[in-house]
């Protein structure tokens, strides 16, 4: 049963979601609904709550108060099963340095019960131009290569929802193009935070501007006032 009784509940729904770190309100009473298949761009300066929101949606941290529902299921009760529907890319690659890329991916494939894992890894590696690097130890890979392996890890189990926390940080132009083309080709709900507005807006259906843990602008890309977004972003970025 979904939270609102609909047959097709939103992919993600939050109700007064709040997360405090001591006295600091990282996320302050957020009400949000993200429909299945929607691609949402989270925008905001450092400290606006983007990473905290992604970690809350990923069930990596618990909210101080409020509710999170993923596909209508209450995350406070079904967090383990909800994680099967989530693919997550964080700042760190979540890969073991002493294992090869393939060994890391096979480990996560086992953890997520991926059928025919080697074939799945091979297919995705081709899409992300990682085939030649699968036998390389992760601690020998460059930053950009690790990011791509991390993205492959996140989609390995074919999750319905992809949560990406600044997946483009530190990438060169070629790697950026590859990353955003790959994201564009993904038939899933995507929630992505980035400081790269141009690339982010090119793949998004909707942009949400966060400031001190609150939504200050929530707009579809079609109706987005890009000038206003740029102005807000730059004004906050420079303090």
């Amino acid at each position: 049963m979904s939270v609102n009784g609909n047959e097709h509940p939103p992919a993600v729904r939050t109700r007064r979601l709040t997360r405090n770190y001591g006295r600091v309100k990282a996320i302050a009473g957020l009400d949000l609904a993200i429909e299945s298949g929607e691609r949402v761009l989270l925008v905001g300066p450092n400290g606006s709550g983007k990473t905290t929101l992604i970690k809350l949606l990923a069930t990596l941290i618990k909210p101080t108060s409020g509710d999170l529902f993923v596909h209508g299921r209450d995350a406070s009760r079904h967090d383990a099963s909800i994680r099967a529907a989530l693919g997550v890319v964080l700042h760190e690659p979540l890969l073991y340095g002493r294992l090869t890329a393939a060994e890391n991916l096979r480990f996560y494939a086992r953890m997520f019960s991926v059928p025919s894992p080697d074939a799945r890894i091979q297919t995705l590696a081709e899409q992300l131009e990682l085939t030649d690097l699968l036998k390389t130890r992760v601690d020998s890979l460059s930053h950009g290569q690790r990011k791509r392996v991390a993205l492959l890890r996140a989609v390995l189990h074919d999750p319905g929802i992809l949560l990406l926390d600044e997946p483009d940080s530190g990438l060169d132009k070629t790697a950026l193009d590859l990353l955003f083309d790959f994201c564009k080709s993904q038939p899933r709900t995507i929630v992505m935070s980035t400081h790269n507005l141009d690339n982010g807006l090119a793949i998004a259906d909707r942009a949400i501007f966060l400031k001190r843990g609150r939504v200050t602008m929530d707009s579809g890309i079609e109706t987005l006032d890009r000038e206003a977004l740029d102005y807000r972003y730059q004004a906050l970025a420079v303090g």
Partner: protein
Amino acid sequence: MTYWLAIAAIVKKDLLLEVRGKEVVLAVSFFVLLMVFTFNFAFRPGSIPNEIMTPGVLWFTFLFAGMLSFQRVVNSEQENGCLDGLMLCPYGRDVIFIAKTISSFVFVMVVEAIAIPIFAVVFNLSAIPIQLILIVPVATLGIAVIGTFLSALSMNTRLREVMLPVLMIPLVVPAVIGAVESTGDAFDGAGWAAVQPWIYVLIIFDIVFLVVGFLTFEHVLEE
């Protein structure tokens, strides 16, 4: 994938990491060797019969070797944010606790299997009692359960290297007493009947702390 297959996958991955890095077994075995020889020189020859001294020295050494191992096994997940990777898998946090306890247990058991014959030679023991086959794994499991739990608890603290022994030593006292007493009885040539009560104490200790860890590990990782 079932619960136990997920645990097996994590343990297998830990073993593979250890084969590649040799950070736990090799380093801790070397530490144990140093401890054995240091203790051998620390006591005046003949001042204490070896059969009396050995159980205490043995378990004191294993306790400290364990602390080094547990921290390494748990902290290895902090590299590249891998703990988040495990926490993103579709299982409860107890899977991580059980898997890490098994990995720690296996590593310390390997170190102990290397160390016990060396102990016997250095301390000039006439034989290794058969009862150690049961005493050592049961006592090591209890120490591994507490060590894994507290290593995770102290993982994000500023003084984690100090916090682990400070928290762990008082808690493992019952296991160490049980291990030393039963090992002492075994070295004295007592039969299975003499060591049985201590083994029961150790088993109860293992079960209690396994259940506590199982039920509370989620909160340890959350904090």
